[in-house]
């Protein structure tokens, strides 16, 4: 591990990395700064970077107008619920494809992925009618279901690629010791797969959190998550950029904070079978 790295090289890489990181982060940073400006300053030219009149009035306005917590809790329940259910369905399926593959496994996998390529808007009316008839409109259960199914192919794919990397010898050794397949799954495989499970969980949570088509079209108020909250700020009459920035900051804050604490797990397991 001990590669000889000169101090100069570290500083050069550090400077470059920070520069790139900053550039990529700039849009988000700018949005957060704008959220603390007044509407007039948000539009001012030349732009003001830090020396403006800092205010939290936008956040107050946003909170007065909409119940942020209600939407945030919905987002959490919907994204969390759909991810968990997807995991429960996907783990056995991925196990089966990884350890008991048949000739059709690869076809099934690709077919699953291809279900994701249909533009959602093309099936909006059929889905809306089904939801109406089953009383699922504006219900969290309905959204959990649809997001779960939407992300299932990706979950299965990720887990499959991850399981495949687990050396078969270990499983066989466990089997020699008389472990049943159920025990093998629970006691041998799962612990080994924790990094993969964790990153799958996180990635799909993020995807579900950010899903903005179904959540917007199938929820009204009770089940409305943060995407609906954002849609009420996106283009009102009047100056709106500072308020929009405040609402946007609120909407992405939980997920960014989650990302901050879990980035190690996310990075470690995010391989999609790309690493041998």
């Amino acid at each position: 591990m001990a590669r000889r790295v000169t101090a100069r090289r570290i500083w050069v890489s550090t400077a470059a990395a920070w520069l790139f990181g900053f550039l990529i982060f700039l849009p988000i940073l700018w949005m957060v700064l704008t959220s603390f400006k007044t509407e007039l300053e948000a539009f001012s030219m030349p732009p003001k970077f830090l020396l403006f009149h800092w205010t939290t009035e936008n956040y107050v306005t946003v909170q007065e107008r909409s119940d942020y917590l209600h939407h945030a809790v919905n987002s959490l329940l919907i994204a969390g619920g759909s991810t968990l259910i997807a995991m429960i369905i996907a783990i056995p399926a991925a196990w089966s494809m990884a350890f008991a593959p048949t000739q059709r496994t690869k076809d099934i996998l690709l077919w699953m992925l291809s279900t994701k390529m249909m533009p959602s808007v093309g099936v909006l009316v059929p889905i809306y009618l089904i939801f109406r008839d089953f009383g699922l409109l504006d219900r969290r259960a309905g959204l959990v279901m649809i997001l779960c199914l939407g992300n299932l192919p990706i979950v299965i794919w990720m887990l499959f690629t991850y399981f495949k990397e687990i050396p078969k010898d270990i499983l066989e050794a466990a089997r020699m010791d008389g472990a049943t397949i159920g025990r093998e799954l629970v006691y041998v495989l799962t612990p080994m797969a924790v990094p993969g499970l964790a990153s799958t969980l996180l990635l799909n949570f993020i995807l579900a959190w950010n899903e903005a088509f179904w959540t917007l079209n199938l929820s009204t108020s009770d089940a409305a998550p943060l995407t609906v909250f954002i849609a009420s700020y996106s283009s009102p009459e009047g100056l709106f950029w500072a308020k929009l920035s405040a609402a946007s900051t609120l909407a992405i804050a939980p997920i960014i904070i989650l990302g901050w604490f879990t980035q190690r797990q996310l990075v470690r397991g995010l391989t999609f079978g790309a690493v041998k």
Partner: protein
Amino acid sequence: MATQQTQVLGRALLTPAVALLFIWMIVPLVMTIYFSTLHYSLLDAEAWRFVGLENFRYFLTDPAFLTALRNTLVLVGSVLAITILLGTPLALLLDQQVVGRSIVRLMVIAPFFVMPTVSALVWKNLLMHPVSGLFAWIATLVGATPIDWFNDAPLLAVILIVAWQWLPFATLILLTALQSQDEEQKEAAEMDGASALSTFIYLTLPHLARPITVVILIETIFLLTVFAEIFVTTGGGPGLQTTNIAFLIYSQALIQYDVGNASAGGLVAVVIANIVAFFLVRIVGRNLEA
């Protein structure tokens, strides 16, 4: 290899997922196929009637269709190219010893957490606005005329926004792969006097072939249906310059409320997606064999 027992169990375990996905796909698909043969407008639902393949003819002869198809491919191709070409050096950089790496890493992956709607709104109004955007200000600082993004280069503007969102994903996957690279091999190469460049070309790049394949595959799935970014920024215009297939179907389904035509369009999109998937698998699929 696998025993009889595992085979049976395997099938049993796989069934729920396959069955669910099958229902998820087949029920709307059957309904969509059915609707696609009807003259069925939501605004005039009583007047529906069977019209056979008329909707398909209408959708495919739409002068917007070929443009939309071209835009879809350009969008997918460009975003893939940008994310991989920028993601690789970025991943290499993050693989180095860097002071405050976890902070830099978070800044780099942050765009991935942002909802597409939000990022489109921020880019359009706060950054790319030709009068009050940050880019316009930077352009005037260096004495240039601000670029009028959504007027003069709308598709490029959309591509940049989408690429910004997906760059973290590519970087992350590539970074994970780099971190698993055999350090000793690299060191040995360096000892032998290999330049950093040739180490990169002969050792690192082949190692990255698989992750790049994965990036292409996963991103393509999502990029084929890019919608929110276009809806928020350009609404498919000016003209048809940023209309992709997903947006074209949207304009049928939710501006025109023409369910029949939108269903036909949705089916056409599925066929296109499968063609793309077919080629994708042929071209890059080999890399995915275990």
